[in-house]
Protein backbone atom coordinates (compact mmCIF):
# COMPACT_ATOMS: atom_id res chain seq x y z
CA UNK A 1 0.00 0.00 0.00
CA UNK A 2 1.51 3.28 -1.05
CA UNK A 3 1.64 6.24 1.24
CA UNK A 4 -0.03 8.32 -1.41
CA UNK A 5 -3.79 8.58 -1.62
CA UNK A 6 -3.80 10.22 -5.03
CA UNK A 7 -1.06 10.38 -7.57
CA UNK A 8 -1.37 12.03 -10.98
CA UNK A 9 1.11 12.49 -13.75
CA UNK A 10 0.52 14.75 -16.75
CA UNK A 11 -3.18 14.18 -16.41
CA UNK A 12 -4.98 15.85 -19.33
CA UNK A 13 -8.55 16.14 -20.48
CA UNK A 14 -9.60 17.73 -23.73
CA UNK A 15 -13.11 18.45 -24.95
CA UNK A 16 -12.55 18.74 -28.68
CA UNK A 17 -10.02 21.53 -29.15
CA UNK A 18 -10.48 22.81 -25.64
CA UNK A 19 -8.05 21.57 -23.02
CA UNK A 20 -9.94 21.66 -19.75
CA UNK A 21 -7.18 20.07 -17.70
CA UNK A 22 -3.66 20.54 -18.99
CA UNK A 23 -0.91 18.16 -17.85
CA UNK A 24 -1.45 18.30 -14.13
CA UNK A 25 0.84 16.31 -11.83
CA UNK A 26 0.44 16.20 -8.09
CA UNK A 27 0.36 13.82 -5.14
CA UNK A 28 -1.97 13.77 -2.18
CA UNK A 29 -0.75 12.07 0.98
CA UNK A 30 -2.95 9.80 3.00
CA UNK A 31 -4.94 11.51 5.72
CA UNK A 32 -4.21 14.96 4.38
CA UNK A 33 -6.72 17.74 3.69
CA UNK A 34 -5.89 18.80 0.19
CA UNK A 35 -7.42 22.06 -1.05
CA UNK A 36 -8.03 22.40 -4.74
CA UNK A 37 -8.41 26.06 -5.67
CA UNK A 38 -9.03 27.84 -8.91
CA UNK A 39 -11.27 30.39 -10.58
CA UNK A 40 -14.51 29.30 -12.21
CA UNK A 41 -13.69 27.32 -15.31
CA UNK A 42 -10.12 26.64 -14.28
CA UNK A 43 -10.70 22.90 -14.55
CA UNK A 44 -11.20 21.84 -10.90
CA UNK A 45 -14.40 19.93 -11.44
CA UNK A 46 -13.09 18.23 -14.58
CA UNK A 47 -9.98 17.11 -12.69
CA UNK A 48 -12.12 15.81 -9.84
CA UNK A 49 -14.39 13.92 -12.22
CA UNK A 50 -11.40 12.15 -13.67
CA UNK A 51 -10.18 11.15 -10.23
CA UNK A 52 -13.61 9.85 -9.18
CA UNK A 53 -14.03 7.77 -12.33
CA UNK A 54 -16.85 9.85 -13.79
CA UNK A 55 -14.80 10.98 -16.75
CA UNK A 56 -12.04 9.29 -18.72
CA UNK A 57 -8.79 11.24 -19.04
CA UNK A 58 -7.49 12.05 -22.51
CA UNK A 59 -3.90 11.31 -21.56
CA UNK A 60 -1.57 11.05 -18.59
CA UNK A 61 -1.89 8.71 -15.65
CA UNK A 62 -3.51 8.78 -12.25
CA UNK A 63 -4.00 6.38 -9.38
CA UNK A 64 -6.50 6.83 -6.59
CA UNK A 65 -5.91 4.76 -3.45
CA UNK A 66 -3.58 2.59 -5.48
CA UNK A 67 -6.01 1.91 -8.32
CA UNK A 68 -5.61 3.08 -11.87
CA UNK A 69 -8.27 5.47 -13.16
CA UNK A 70 -8.34 3.88 -16.58
CA UNK A 71 -8.61 0.23 -15.70
CA UNK A 72 -9.85 0.09 -12.12
CA UNK A 73 -12.47 2.81 -12.00
CA UNK A 74 -14.96 0.53 -10.26
CA UNK A 75 -12.42 -0.42 -7.55
CA UNK A 76 -11.78 3.26 -6.98
CA UNK A 77 -15.49 3.82 -6.50
CA UNK A 78 -15.54 1.43 -3.54
CA UNK A 79 -12.84 3.45 -1.82
CA UNK A 80 -14.06 6.96 -2.32
CA UNK A 81 -16.88 9.19 -1.27
CA UNK A 82 -18.05 12.05 -3.43
CA UNK A 83 -20.07 15.14 -2.87
CA UNK A 84 -21.04 16.92 -6.03
CA UNK A 85 -21.06 20.67 -6.57
CA UNK A 86 -24.73 20.43 -7.45
CA UNK A 87 -26.89 18.78 -4.81
CA UNK A 88 -27.53 15.33 -6.16
CA UNK A 89 -29.47 13.35 -3.59
CA UNK A 90 -33.10 12.46 -4.13
CA UNK A 91 -35.34 15.40 -3.35
CA UNK A 92 -38.42 13.24 -3.17
CA UNK A 93 -37.04 10.92 -0.51
CA UNK A 94 -36.64 11.74 3.16
CA UNK A 95 -33.24 12.28 4.74
CA UNK A 96 -33.42 8.84 6.28
CA UNK A 97 -34.45 7.14 3.03
CA UNK A 98 -31.56 8.72 1.17
CA UNK A 99 -29.13 7.30 3.71
CA UNK A 100 -30.83 3.91 3.53
CA UNK A 101 -30.65 3.94 -0.23
CA UNK A 102 -26.96 4.76 -0.45
CA UNK A 103 -26.17 2.44 2.43
CA UNK A 104 -27.75 -0.33 0.40
CA UNK A 105 -25.78 0.56 -2.71
CA UNK A 106 -22.52 0.47 -0.78
CA UNK A 107 -23.48 -2.94 0.51
CA UNK A 108 -23.89 -2.06 4.17
CA UNK A 109 -25.97 -4.77 5.80
CA UNK A 110 -29.34 -3.92 7.32
CA UNK A 111 -28.32 -4.53 10.91
CA UNK A 112 -25.25 -2.32 10.52
CA UNK A 113 -27.21 0.29 8.68
CA UNK A 114 -29.92 1.18 11.15
CA UNK A 115 -27.59 2.24 14.02
CA UNK A 116 -25.47 3.97 11.40
CA UNK A 117 -28.40 6.04 10.19
CA UNK A 118 -29.00 7.29 13.73
CA UNK A 119 -25.33 8.04 14.19
CA UNK A 120 -24.99 9.88 10.90
CA UNK A 121 -28.12 11.95 11.37
CA UNK A 122 -27.09 12.89 14.92
CA UNK A 123 -23.57 13.83 13.86
CA UNK A 124 -24.86 16.44 11.44
CA UNK A 125 -27.73 17.33 13.82
CA UNK A 126 -30.44 16.36 11.35
CA UNK A 127 -32.14 13.92 13.72
CA UNK A 128 -35.19 16.14 14.01
CA UNK A 129 -35.87 16.20 10.25
CA UNK A 130 -35.09 12.60 9.41
CA UNK A 131 -38.64 11.93 8.23
CA UNK A 132 -38.86 15.07 6.15
CA UNK A 133 -38.52 15.15 2.41
CA UNK A 134 -35.12 16.44 1.44
CA UNK A 135 -36.81 18.93 -0.87
CA UNK A 136 -38.09 20.86 2.12
CA UNK A 137 -34.69 21.25 3.81
CA UNK A 138 -32.58 24.43 3.57
CA UNK A 139 -29.49 24.21 1.39
CA UNK A 140 -27.01 24.10 4.26
CA UNK A 141 -28.79 21.09 5.77
CA UNK A 142 -28.94 19.34 2.45
CA UNK A 143 -25.20 19.84 2.08
CA UNK A 144 -24.59 18.35 5.51
CA UNK A 145 -26.69 15.35 4.56
CA UNK A 146 -24.79 14.98 1.28
CA UNK A 147 -21.53 15.10 3.17
CA UNK A 148 -22.56 12.47 5.66
CA UNK A 149 -23.66 10.18 2.82
CA UNK A 150 -20.31 10.71 1.10
CA UNK A 151 -18.54 9.31 4.17
CA UNK A 152 -21.21 6.72 5.05
CA UNK A 153 -19.23 3.71 3.87
CA UNK A 154 -15.93 4.75 5.50
CA UNK A 155 -14.12 5.59 2.27
CA UNK A 156 -10.37 6.06 2.15
CA UNK A 157 -10.71 9.33 0.29
CA UNK A 158 -13.57 11.79 0.15
CA UNK A 159 -13.94 14.24 -2.71
CA UNK A 160 -15.86 17.41 -1.90
CA UNK A 161 -16.70 19.70 -4.79
CA UNK A 162 -17.44 23.13 -3.33
CA UNK A 163 -19.21 21.70 -0.30
CA UNK A 164 -19.82 25.08 1.26
CA UNK A 165 -21.03 26.94 -1.83
CA UNK A 166 -24.02 29.09 -0.91
CA UNK A 167 -23.93 28.09 2.75
CA UNK A 168 -24.08 30.53 5.68
CA UNK A 169 -20.89 31.23 7.73
CA UNK A 170 -22.06 29.31 10.80
CA UNK A 171 -22.84 26.20 8.81
CA UNK A 172 -19.58 26.60 6.94
CA UNK A 173 -17.72 26.55 10.22
CA UNK A 174 -19.59 23.42 11.32
CA UNK A 175 -18.74 21.88 8.00
CA UNK A 176 -15.06 22.38 8.50
CA UNK A 177 -15.29 20.93 11.98
CA UNK A 178 -16.77 17.84 10.36
CA UNK A 179 -14.01 17.80 7.77
CA UNK A 180 -11.40 17.85 10.54
CA UNK A 181 -13.15 15.02 12.36
CA UNK A 182 -13.15 12.95 9.21
CA UNK A 183 -9.52 13.73 8.60
CA UNK A 184 -8.69 12.66 12.17
CA UNK A 185 -10.18 9.28 11.35
CA UNK A 186 -7.52 8.96 8.65
CA UNK A 187 -9.75 9.73 5.70
CA UNK A 188 -8.05 11.79 3.02
CA UNK A 189 -10.04 14.88 2.09
CA UNK A 190 -9.83 16.39 -1.37
CA UNK A 191 -11.79 19.62 -1.39
CA UNK A 192 -12.43 22.41 -3.86
CA UNK A 193 -13.49 25.82 -2.65
CA UNK A 194 -13.91 29.44 -3.59
CA UNK A 195 -13.50 30.70 -0.06
CA UNK A 196 -9.95 31.74 0.63
CA UNK A 197 -10.36 31.58 4.41
CA UNK A 198 -11.23 27.92 3.95
CA UNK A 199 -8.05 27.42 1.94
CA UNK A 200 -6.13 28.34 5.06
CA UNK A 201 -7.67 25.37 6.88
CA UNK A 202 -6.15 22.91 4.43
CA UNK A 203 -2.91 21.04 4.99
CA UNK A 204 -1.82 21.71 1.44
CA UNK A 205 -3.39 23.56 -1.42
CA UNK A 206 -2.98 23.71 -5.15
CA UNK A 207 -4.13 26.58 -7.33
CA UNK A 208 -5.32 25.87 -10.85
CA UNK A 209 -5.16 28.48 -13.58
CA UNK A 210 -6.31 27.74 -17.14
CA UNK A 211 -6.22 23.99 -16.56
CA UNK A 212 -2.68 24.00 -15.11
CA UNK A 213 -1.56 23.76 -11.52
CA UNK A 214 0.40 26.97 -11.04
CA UNK A 215 1.09 26.70 -7.35
CA UNK A 216 1.19 23.87 -4.83
CA UNK A 217 2.28 23.76 -1.21
CA UNK A 218 1.17 24.44 2.33
CA UNK A 219 -0.66 27.74 2.80
CA UNK A 220 2.40 29.22 4.50
CA UNK A 221 4.77 28.13 1.75
CA UNK A 222 2.57 29.72 -0.90
CA UNK A 223 2.24 32.97 0.99
CA UNK A 224 5.99 33.10 1.33
CA UNK A 225 6.88 32.26 -2.24
CA UNK A 226 4.38 34.77 -3.61
CA UNK A 227 5.31 37.25 -0.88
CA UNK A 228 1.69 37.83 0.06
CA UNK A 229 0.10 38.09 3.47
CA UNK A 230 -2.91 35.93 2.59
CA UNK A 231 -3.93 33.12 0.28
CA UNK A 232 -6.46 35.48 -1.20
CA UNK A 233 -3.68 37.69 -2.54
CA UNK A 234 -1.76 34.70 -3.84
CA UNK A 235 -4.88 33.60 -5.61
CA UNK A 236 -5.56 37.00 -7.12
CA UNK A 237 -1.98 37.29 -8.37
CA UNK A 238 -2.27 33.93 -10.10
CA UNK A 239 -5.81 34.32 -11.34
CA UNK A 240 -4.99 37.64 -13.03
CA UNK A 241 -2.65 35.83 -15.35
CA UNK A 242 -5.54 33.64 -16.54
CA UNK A 243 -6.50 34.01 -20.17
CA UNK A 244 -9.78 32.12 -19.90
CA UNK A 245 -12.77 34.25 -19.09
CA UNK A 246 -14.64 33.90 -15.85
CA UNK A 247 -17.18 31.10 -15.92
Amino acid at each position, binding site marked *: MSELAIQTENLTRKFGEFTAVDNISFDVKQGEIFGFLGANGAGKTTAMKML*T*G*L*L*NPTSGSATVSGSDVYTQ*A*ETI*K*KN*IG*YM*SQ*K*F*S*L*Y*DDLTAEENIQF*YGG*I*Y*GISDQDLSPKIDEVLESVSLGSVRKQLVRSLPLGWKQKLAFSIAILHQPKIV*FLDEPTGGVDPVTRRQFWEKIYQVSDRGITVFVTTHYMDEAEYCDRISIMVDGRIDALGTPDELKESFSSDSIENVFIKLARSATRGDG
Partner: protein
Amino acid sequence: MLPILFVMPVIQLLVLSFAATYELKEVDFALLDMDQSRVSRELAAKFQSTGYFNLQAETFDRNKAMEWLDAGRVSLIIIVPPDFEEDLTNGREAPVQLIIDAVDGSTAGLIQSYSASILNDLNAEKQLELKIKSADPAVVQAKTINLIPQNWYNPDLDYITFMVPGILVVLVSMIGLFLSGMNIVREQEIGTIEQLNVTPIRKYQFMVGKLLPFWIIGMFDLLVGLALARYGFHIPFLGNLATILVVAGIFLVVIQSLGLLISTMTNTQQQAMFIAWFIMVVFILLGGLFTPIESMPGWAQNITLANPVAYFIKIMRMVLLKGAGWQEIQVMVYTLIGMGSVLLMVSINRYKKTTG
Protein backbone atom coordinates in the same frame (compact mmCIF):
# COMPACT_ATOMS: atom_id res chain seq x y z
CA MET B 1 -48.30 10.80 -9.87
CA LEU B 2 -49.05 7.33 -8.51
CA PRO B 3 -52.85 7.62 -8.68
CA ILE B 4 -52.55 8.81 -12.28
CA LEU B 5 -50.72 5.64 -13.15
CA PHE B 6 -53.65 3.57 -12.02
CA VAL B 7 -56.58 5.77 -12.96
CA MET B 8 -55.33 6.57 -16.44
CA PRO B 9 -55.42 3.02 -17.80
CA VAL B 10 -58.92 2.42 -16.50
CA ILE B 11 -60.24 5.57 -18.13
CA GLN B 12 -58.39 4.76 -21.31
CA LEU B 13 -59.89 1.31 -21.42
CA LEU B 14 -63.40 2.55 -20.77
CA VAL B 15 -63.33 5.44 -23.19
CA LEU B 16 -61.45 3.81 -26.04
CA SER B 17 -63.34 0.57 -25.91
CA PHE B 18 -66.65 2.32 -26.40
CA ALA B 19 -65.43 5.00 -28.77
CA ALA B 20 -63.23 3.03 -31.11
CA THR B 21 -66.15 1.41 -32.82
CA TYR B 22 -66.63 -0.06 -36.24
CA GLU B 23 -70.29 -0.67 -35.79
CA LEU B 24 -72.67 1.29 -37.95
CA LYS B 25 -75.20 3.40 -36.15
CA GLU B 26 -77.69 5.99 -37.32
CA VAL B 27 -76.63 6.51 -40.90
CA ASP B 28 -78.70 9.37 -42.29
CA PHE B 29 -79.93 8.85 -45.80
CA ALA B 30 -81.90 10.74 -48.45
CA LEU B 31 -84.50 9.02 -50.56
CA LEU B 32 -85.30 9.82 -54.18
CA ASP B 33 -88.34 7.72 -54.81
CA MET B 34 -89.28 8.20 -58.47
CA ASP B 35 -91.48 5.16 -58.45
CA GLN B 36 -93.78 5.97 -55.53
CA SER B 37 -94.99 2.39 -55.51
CA ARG B 38 -95.78 -0.16 -52.86
CA VAL B 39 -92.41 -1.90 -53.29
CA SER B 40 -90.41 1.34 -53.18
CA ARG B 41 -92.11 2.32 -49.93
CA GLU B 42 -91.41 -1.14 -48.60
CA LEU B 43 -87.76 -0.70 -49.50
CA ALA B 44 -87.50 2.58 -47.60
CA ALA B 45 -89.27 1.07 -44.62
CA LYS B 46 -86.91 -1.90 -44.62
CA PHE B 47 -83.90 0.35 -44.44
CA GLN B 48 -85.35 2.25 -41.52
CA SER B 49 -86.52 -0.78 -39.62
CA THR B 50 -82.99 -2.15 -39.28
CA GLY B 51 -82.15 0.64 -36.87
CA TYR B 52 -78.94 1.39 -38.72
CA PHE B 53 -80.46 3.81 -41.19
CA ASN B 54 -82.40 6.94 -40.61
CA LEU B 55 -84.47 8.61 -43.31
CA GLN B 56 -83.36 12.20 -43.14
CA ALA B 57 -85.23 13.68 -46.14
CA GLU B 58 -87.09 12.83 -49.29
CA THR B 59 -86.87 14.67 -52.57
CA PHE B 60 -87.35 14.27 -56.29
CA ASP B 61 -84.44 16.50 -57.15
CA ARG B 62 -81.20 14.62 -57.56
CA ASN B 63 -79.12 17.80 -57.30
CA LYS B 64 -80.72 18.65 -54.00
CA ALA B 65 -79.79 15.26 -52.65
CA MET B 66 -76.23 15.68 -53.88
CA GLU B 67 -76.05 19.01 -52.03
CA TRP B 68 -77.07 17.26 -48.84
CA LEU B 69 -74.39 14.68 -49.40
CA ASP B 70 -71.79 17.43 -49.98
CA ALA B 71 -72.86 19.20 -46.83
CA GLY B 72 -72.61 16.01 -44.83
CA ARG B 73 -76.30 16.07 -43.94
CA VAL B 74 -76.67 12.56 -45.30
CA SER B 75 -74.12 9.83 -45.95
CA LEU B 76 -76.24 7.80 -48.31
CA ILE B 77 -78.63 8.55 -51.16
CA ILE B 78 -81.02 5.85 -52.29
CA ILE B 79 -82.43 6.41 -55.77
CA VAL B 80 -85.38 4.28 -56.84
CA PRO B 81 -85.99 4.75 -60.57
CA PRO B 82 -89.48 5.01 -62.09
CA ASP B 83 -91.06 1.69 -63.05
CA PHE B 84 -89.12 -0.08 -60.34
CA GLU B 85 -92.07 -2.10 -59.14
CA GLU B 86 -93.19 -2.93 -62.61
CA ASP B 87 -89.78 -4.19 -63.65
CA LEU B 88 -89.46 -6.23 -60.54
CA THR B 89 -92.80 -7.95 -60.77
CA ASN B 90 -92.27 -8.72 -64.41
CA GLY B 91 -88.99 -10.46 -63.74
CA ARG B 92 -86.86 -7.78 -65.40
CA GLU B 93 -83.77 -6.19 -63.99
CA ALA B 94 -84.82 -3.59 -61.45
CA PRO B 95 -81.81 -1.45 -60.45
CA VAL B 96 -81.58 0.70 -57.35
CA GLN B 97 -78.81 3.28 -57.10
CA LEU B 98 -76.90 3.92 -53.86
CA ILE B 99 -74.64 6.92 -53.60
CA ILE B 100 -72.38 6.63 -50.55
CA ASP B 101 -70.15 9.23 -48.94
CA ALA B 102 -66.86 7.32 -48.98
CA VAL B 103 -64.54 9.84 -47.34
CA ASP B 104 -64.22 7.28 -44.57
CA GLY B 105 -63.62 4.16 -46.60
CA SER B 106 -64.38 1.65 -43.92
CA THR B 107 -67.70 3.24 -42.96
CA ALA B 108 -68.62 3.38 -46.65
CA GLY B 109 -67.81 -0.29 -46.96
CA LEU B 110 -70.05 -1.06 -44.04
CA ILE B 111 -72.92 1.02 -45.43
CA GLN B 112 -72.55 -0.80 -48.71
CA SER B 113 -72.61 -4.26 -47.24
CA TYR B 114 -75.50 -3.50 -44.87
CA SER B 115 -77.47 -2.00 -47.75
CA ALA B 116 -76.67 -4.92 -49.99
CA SER B 117 -77.98 -7.38 -47.46
CA ILE B 118 -81.18 -5.37 -46.96
CA LEU B 119 -81.72 -5.26 -50.72
CA ASN B 120 -81.00 -8.95 -50.98
CA ASP B 121 -83.59 -9.64 -48.38
CA LEU B 122 -86.15 -7.60 -50.20
CA ASN B 123 -85.23 -9.31 -53.43
CA ALA B 124 -85.67 -12.75 -51.93
CA GLU B 125 -89.06 -11.86 -50.55
CA LYS B 126 -90.22 -10.50 -53.87
CA GLN B 127 -88.91 -13.53 -55.71
CA LEU B 128 -90.89 -15.73 -53.39
CA GLU B 129 -94.08 -13.76 -53.93
CA LEU B 130 -93.51 -13.89 -57.62
CA LYS B 131 -92.94 -17.61 -57.56
CA ILE B 132 -96.14 -18.26 -55.69
CA LYS B 133 -98.11 -16.00 -57.97
CA SER B 134 -96.96 -17.18 -61.33
CA ALA B 135 -95.58 -20.63 -60.75
CA ASP B 136 -93.58 -19.96 -63.89
CA PRO B 137 -90.84 -22.63 -64.00
CA ALA B 138 -88.25 -20.14 -65.30
CA VAL B 139 -88.77 -17.91 -62.30
CA VAL B 140 -88.87 -20.82 -59.87
CA GLN B 141 -85.48 -21.91 -61.09
CA ALA B 142 -83.98 -18.49 -60.58
CA LYS B 143 -82.75 -19.41 -57.15
CA THR B 144 -79.75 -17.70 -55.79
CA ILE B 145 -76.95 -19.27 -53.80
CA ASN B 146 -77.45 -18.00 -50.32
CA LEU B 147 -74.47 -17.48 -48.07
CA ILE B 148 -75.18 -17.80 -44.40
CA PRO B 149 -71.98 -16.77 -42.63
CA GLN B 150 -71.10 -18.13 -39.22
CA ASN B 151 -68.69 -15.98 -37.29
CA TRP B 152 -66.35 -17.98 -35.15
CA TYR B 153 -64.66 -16.75 -31.96
CA ASN B 154 -66.74 -13.56 -31.94
CA PRO B 155 -70.17 -14.77 -33.06
CA ASP B 156 -71.95 -11.44 -32.60
CA LEU B 157 -69.15 -9.52 -34.30
CA ASP B 158 -68.94 -7.42 -31.18
CA TYR B 159 -66.25 -4.81 -31.70
CA ILE B 160 -65.67 -4.45 -27.96
CA THR B 161 -64.62 -8.08 -27.77
CA PHE B 162 -62.15 -7.36 -30.51
CA MET B 163 -60.85 -4.00 -29.25
CA VAL B 164 -60.48 -4.50 -25.51
CA PRO B 165 -57.60 -7.02 -25.61
CA GLY B 166 -55.73 -4.77 -28.04
CA ILE B 167 -56.34 -1.62 -26.04
CA LEU B 168 -55.04 -3.38 -22.95
CA VAL B 169 -51.78 -3.97 -24.80
CA VAL B 170 -51.50 -0.35 -25.85
CA LEU B 171 -52.06 0.81 -22.31
CA VAL B 172 -49.41 -1.46 -20.87
CA SER B 173 -47.02 -0.39 -23.64
CA MET B 174 -47.51 3.28 -22.86
CA ILE B 175 -46.70 2.76 -19.21
CA GLY B 176 -43.66 0.66 -20.03
CA LEU B 177 -42.25 2.88 -22.73
CA PHE B 178 -42.89 6.30 -21.26
CA LEU B 179 -42.02 5.70 -17.64
CA SER B 180 -38.74 4.00 -18.40
CA GLY B 181 -38.04 6.34 -21.30
CA MET B 182 -38.14 9.35 -19.01
CA ASN B 183 -36.27 7.66 -16.25
CA ILE B 184 -32.52 7.79 -16.68
CA VAL B 185 -32.62 11.00 -18.64
CA ARG B 186 -34.54 12.59 -15.78
CA GLU B 187 -31.86 11.60 -13.30
CA GLN B 188 -29.35 13.05 -15.69
CA GLU B 189 -31.27 16.31 -15.84
CA ILE B 190 -31.59 16.75 -12.11
CA GLY B 191 -28.07 15.48 -11.50
CA THR B 192 -28.80 12.56 -9.20
CA ILE B 193 -27.19 10.18 -11.67
CA GLU B 194 -23.78 11.62 -10.84
CA GLN B 195 -24.00 10.57 -7.23
CA LEU B 196 -24.96 7.07 -8.37
CA ASN B 197 -22.15 6.89 -10.87
CA VAL B 198 -19.48 7.41 -8.22
CA THR B 199 -20.78 4.42 -6.28
CA PRO B 200 -19.64 0.88 -7.01
CA ILE B 201 -23.15 -0.05 -8.20
CA ARG B 202 -23.03 -2.52 -11.11
CA LYS B 203 -24.64 -1.58 -14.38
CA TYR B 204 -27.03 -4.51 -14.36
CA GLN B 205 -28.05 -3.71 -10.78
CA PHE B 206 -28.79 -0.18 -11.84
CA MET B 207 -30.85 -1.37 -14.80
CA VAL B 208 -32.80 -3.90 -12.75
CA GLY B 209 -33.52 -1.14 -10.27
CA LYS B 210 -34.84 0.96 -13.12
CA LEU B 211 -36.95 -1.82 -14.66
CA LEU B 212 -38.51 -3.54 -11.71
CA PRO B 213 -40.74 -0.81 -10.20
CA PHE B 214 -42.36 0.05 -13.53
CA TRP B 215 -42.63 -3.62 -14.40
CA ILE B 216 -44.67 -4.15 -11.26
CA ILE B 217 -46.84 -1.12 -12.02
CA GLY B 218 -47.34 -2.33 -15.58
CA MET B 219 -48.34 -5.81 -14.44
CA PHE B 220 -50.69 -4.40 -11.84
CA ASP B 221 -52.34 -2.17 -14.43
CA LEU B 222 -52.71 -5.13 -16.74
CA LEU B 223 -54.41 -7.13 -14.00
CA VAL B 224 -56.82 -4.28 -13.33
CA GLY B 225 -57.46 -4.04 -17.06
CA LEU B 226 -58.02 -7.77 -17.41
CA ALA B 227 -60.44 -7.76 -14.50
CA LEU B 228 -62.33 -4.91 -16.13
CA ALA B 229 -62.34 -6.75 -19.44
CA ARG B 230 -63.63 -9.92 -17.83
CA TYR B 231 -66.25 -8.54 -15.47
CA GLY B 232 -67.01 -5.16 -17.05
CA PHE B 233 -66.95 -5.97 -20.74
CA HIS B 234 -67.62 -9.70 -20.44
CA ILE B 235 -64.82 -10.54 -22.79
CA PRO B 236 -64.54 -14.31 -23.05
CA PHE B 237 -61.40 -15.70 -21.42
CA LEU B 238 -61.04 -18.89 -23.37
CA GLY B 239 -57.29 -19.30 -22.93
CA ASN B 240 -55.12 -19.60 -19.91
CA LEU B 241 -54.73 -16.44 -17.84
CA ALA B 242 -51.26 -17.53 -16.73
CA THR B 243 -50.14 -17.62 -20.36
CA ILE B 244 -51.24 -14.02 -20.77
CA LEU B 245 -49.41 -12.97 -17.63
CA VAL B 246 -46.17 -14.69 -18.61
CA VAL B 247 -46.25 -13.12 -22.06
CA ALA B 248 -47.11 -9.75 -20.53
CA GLY B 249 -44.10 -10.04 -18.23
CA ILE B 250 -41.82 -10.70 -21.17
CA PHE B 251 -43.45 -8.01 -23.27
CA LEU B 252 -43.00 -5.42 -20.52
CA VAL B 253 -39.29 -6.16 -20.35
CA VAL B 254 -39.04 -5.67 -24.13
CA ILE B 255 -40.86 -2.37 -24.11
CA GLN B 256 -39.13 -1.08 -20.97
CA SER B 257 -35.71 -1.95 -22.34
CA LEU B 258 -36.60 0.06 -25.40
CA GLY B 259 -37.60 2.90 -23.09
CA LEU B 260 -34.32 2.69 -21.21
CA LEU B 261 -32.45 2.66 -24.50
CA ILE B 262 -34.23 5.88 -25.48
CA SER B 263 -33.35 7.25 -22.08
CA THR B 264 -29.65 6.51 -22.49
CA MET B 265 -29.57 8.01 -25.96
CA THR B 266 -31.20 11.34 -25.19
CA ASN B 267 -30.04 14.32 -23.18
CA THR B 268 -33.32 15.84 -22.07
CA GLN B 269 -36.72 14.56 -21.07
CA GLN B 270 -38.22 16.47 -23.98
CA GLN B 271 -36.16 14.57 -26.50
CA ALA B 272 -36.99 11.30 -24.81
CA MET B 273 -40.69 12.14 -24.78
CA PHE B 274 -40.65 13.05 -28.44
CA ILE B 275 -38.92 9.86 -29.53
CA ALA B 276 -41.11 7.73 -27.28
CA TRP B 277 -44.21 9.26 -28.84
CA PHE B 278 -42.94 8.72 -32.32
CA ILE B 279 -42.24 5.06 -31.64
CA MET B 280 -45.52 4.58 -29.83
CA VAL B 281 -47.57 5.94 -32.73
CA VAL B 282 -45.76 3.70 -35.20
CA PHE B 283 -46.25 0.74 -32.90
CA ILE B 284 -49.97 1.36 -32.55
CA LEU B 285 -50.67 2.09 -36.20
CA LEU B 286 -48.61 -0.88 -37.32
CA GLY B 287 -49.82 -3.04 -34.47
CA GLY B 288 -53.01 -4.39 -35.93
CA LEU B 289 -55.14 -2.69 -33.30
CA PHE B 290 -57.35 -0.74 -35.70
CA THR B 291 -56.42 -2.08 -39.10
CA PRO B 292 -55.62 -5.72 -39.76
CA ILE B 293 -51.95 -6.38 -40.47
CA GLU B 294 -52.98 -8.79 -43.23
CA SER B 295 -54.40 -5.94 -45.29
CA MET B 296 -51.28 -3.79 -45.08
CA PRO B 297 -48.91 -3.60 -48.04
CA GLY B 298 -46.04 -6.09 -47.99
CA TRP B 299 -43.38 -3.67 -46.80
CA ALA B 300 -45.55 -2.52 -43.90
CA GLN B 301 -46.23 -6.11 -42.94
CA ASN B 302 -42.49 -6.65 -42.83
CA ILE B 303 -42.09 -3.70 -40.48
CA THR B 304 -44.67 -5.19 -38.13
CA LEU B 305 -42.36 -8.17 -37.70
CA ALA B 306 -40.18 -5.88 -35.61
CA ASN B 307 -43.11 -4.51 -33.65
CA PRO B 308 -43.48 -6.07 -30.20
CA VAL B 309 -46.89 -4.45 -29.77
CA ALA B 310 -48.18 -6.30 -32.85
CA TYR B 311 -47.08 -9.62 -31.37
CA PHE B 312 -48.65 -8.99 -28.02
CA ILE B 313 -51.94 -7.78 -29.51
CA LYS B 314 -52.06 -10.90 -31.63
CA ILE B 315 -51.24 -13.16 -28.70
CA MET B 316 -53.82 -11.46 -26.51
CA ARG B 317 -56.57 -11.93 -29.05
CA MET B 318 -55.54 -15.47 -29.82
CA VAL B 319 -55.38 -16.57 -26.22
CA LEU B 320 -58.37 -14.68 -24.86
CA LEU B 321 -60.78 -15.04 -27.77
CA LYS B 322 -59.69 -18.27 -29.43
CA GLY B 323 -58.26 -20.11 -26.48
CA ALA B 324 -54.88 -20.55 -28.13
CA GLY B 325 -52.28 -22.37 -26.10
CA TRP B 326 -48.51 -22.47 -26.01
CA GLN B 327 -48.29 -24.41 -29.26
CA GLU B 328 -49.85 -21.62 -31.28
CA ILE B 329 -48.03 -18.69 -29.75
CA GLN B 330 -44.59 -20.05 -28.95
CA VAL B 331 -42.82 -18.63 -32.02
CA MET B 332 -44.09 -15.15 -31.20
CA VAL B 333 -43.07 -15.52 -27.57
CA TYR B 334 -39.56 -16.59 -28.58
CA THR B 335 -39.37 -13.57 -30.85
CA LEU B 336 -40.34 -11.33 -27.94
CA ILE B 337 -37.72 -12.97 -25.72
CA GLY B 338 -35.14 -12.38 -28.43
CA MET B 339 -36.10 -8.73 -28.78
CA GLY B 340 -36.04 -8.23 -25.04
CA SER B 341 -32.60 -9.77 -24.60
CA VAL B 342 -31.06 -7.69 -27.36
CA LEU B 343 -32.66 -4.45 -26.24
CA LEU B 344 -31.78 -5.04 -22.61
CA MET B 345 -28.15 -5.82 -23.41
CA VAL B 346 -27.82 -2.83 -25.69
CA SER B 347 -29.34 -0.49 -23.14
CA ILE B 348 -27.17 -1.82 -20.30
CA ASN B 349 -24.23 -1.34 -22.59
CA ARG B 350 -25.30 2.16 -23.57
CA TYR B 351 -25.49 3.30 -19.98
CA LYS B 352 -22.03 4.53 -19.08
CA LYS B 353 -20.94 5.22 -15.57
CA THR B 354 -17.84 6.90 -16.92
CA THR B 355 -18.23 9.35 -19.76
CA GLY B 356 -15.70 9.05 -22.54
